[in-house]
């Protein structure tokens, strides 16, 4: 199956059902290289994903991945990407929403998928996005005290302002003998 055929199949299954349920205005979709992404306002993210999971004709029962993208020049700085898979239809779909820079909050999906637990922890660790309703929002990889030694602010390594070489003093090292 070529990429174009795959895209037509995904669009044929997903778009009529979604516009039928949510109407025209709320969702926007984009396509690139045979992949479909759906953007949604972040207040309605959980509602949309719940519908995608529970509607029998769609059946997106697997959450494959969550990640964030830092668009540092935009007002809505962080974009969240949810990669979901439908076992019944064998199709993949990306759901996206934006969140702002000052207080990057978004609702947690842990109530819908247990898999979201670690994915959201990783995204919090790397980008500093707060997932409201997450039961255990700790850092995944970095140590809990990974802070700027001068300001005391927590550091998030995948934000664009974080330097490639790291921040000196942010990781305490053993003393030299």
């Amino acid at each position, binding site marked *: 199956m070529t990429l174009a055929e795959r895209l037509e199949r995904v669009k044929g299954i997903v778009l009529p059902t979604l516009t039928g349920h949510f109407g025209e205005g709320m969702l926007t979709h984009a396509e690139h290289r045979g992949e479909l992404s759906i953007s949604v306002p972040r207040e309605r993210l959980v509602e949309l994903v719940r519908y995608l999971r529970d509607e029998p004709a769609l059946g997106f029962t*697997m959450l494959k991945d969550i990640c964030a993208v830092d668009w540092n020049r935009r007002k809505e700085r962080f974009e969240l990407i949810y990669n979901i898979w439908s076992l019944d239809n064998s199709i993949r779909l990306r759901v996206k929403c934006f969140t702002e820079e000052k207080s990057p909050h978004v609702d947690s999906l842990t109530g819908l998928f247990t898999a979201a637990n670690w994915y959201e922890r990783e995204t919090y660790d790397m980008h500093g996005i707060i997932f409201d309703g997450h039961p255990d929002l700790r850092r995944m990889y970095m140590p809990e005290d990974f802070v700027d030694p001068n300001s005391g602010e927590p550091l998030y390594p995948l934000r664009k302002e974080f330097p490639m070489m790291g921040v000196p003093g942010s990781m305490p090292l053993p003393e030299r003998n």
Partner: protein
Amino acid sequence: MNINSSATLERVYDLRQRKILSKIIDKDTTISLEGRDPLENTMVLNMGPQHPATHGVLRVLLRLDGETVEKCVPELGYLHRGYEKLGENISFHEFLPHTDRLDYLSPLSNNVGYALAVEKAAGIETPERAVWIRTLISELARISSHLMAMGAMAMDVGAVTMLLWTFREREKLYDIFEKICGARFTTSYTRIGGVANDFTPDVLPMIRKFIEEFPANLRDFEGLINRNRIFVERVSGIGVITAQDAIALGLTGACLRGSGVPHDLRRDEPYLMYDQLDFDVITYSDGDCLSRYLTRGDEMKESVKIVNQLLGRIPSGPTLADDAKNVLPGKTEIYTKMEELIHDFMLINFGVQPEPGEIYSAIEAPKGELGFYIVSDGTGHAWRMKIRSPSFCNLQALTPMCEGSMISDVVAIIGSIDPVMGEADK
């Protein structure tokens, strides 16, 4: 400011321990044994990060009531090298060797997965022979990874002979890999647009010989422990996860198929040559450690089937795409032709420049779904490179699998999940 003083270190240590311990110790739990019956208390056991059965640097904190695991908290990050950050700062060609270090037990399939992702982003077509080579090496990598998984799991529960036997077979595969690309572990064999070099004439006879002998050897392995009561009773009914839970946890690979869900990207989202090949998706329905173990064993037989089909249809032709703007030219051309020299200079300095947009490309790696999500802004390096690593997602099932089981089952469960920390920690 002197951050390195021992007082700071002590404070940091306290903070970390408190945060981790507070996860597993409730207010009413006490680990002090003074004046009370020790058997009435729960205790906290720290397993790893340096523990032979945790397959690398996985740290697991366990709260035990006698020998029963009451709570299990995995801690990751001991091998975090920031590959996603690196991917945003170096060109697509430069990132390729780093994919070897993700799942270091099957570097060839990581190379293939990454090359496919960049080619999808940049819209590069690969020649038929390169696609054939990639399919072949992916299956050989699957066999070598599953051999390691079976051997290590058997060793974790006490059957050390198994590991020595599977290592012997794996050695032969690594000899083949060495012939193919000159390296045994860090292969970096694929290139964007194809593979680094064609097979030398002695590679195919080696593969044929291995594939001919392998089924009999596999039967020997299975004869060794598959009907061994000690082994079977040690792993069957242990670490059970239902199909529903496995789907909700986003498990992939043998962990999902061991729970009876027939999801395999080779069939569900075919890439390379898999839509032209005949193979079965193996499932076992019990969802326990034995099911996952048996799934891997049978998948190797399917891989042998696939390799045999591939060896029956060998295409000829170039192994690198003819696309001067994206594919690195060969050294002979660079040294003799002006145009190729210019292209090489441009590619090394500015890299492949996919048009702006985002792609996600995934392959069925031995451990599960290995995906690369690349956001391109039209420059020579990715704006965002997210690695969806199967070991990370599968490890999340450790907590539900371990809680309620015995402490000696934990090693069997970790072995059956088959995590590779290089990939889980990125």
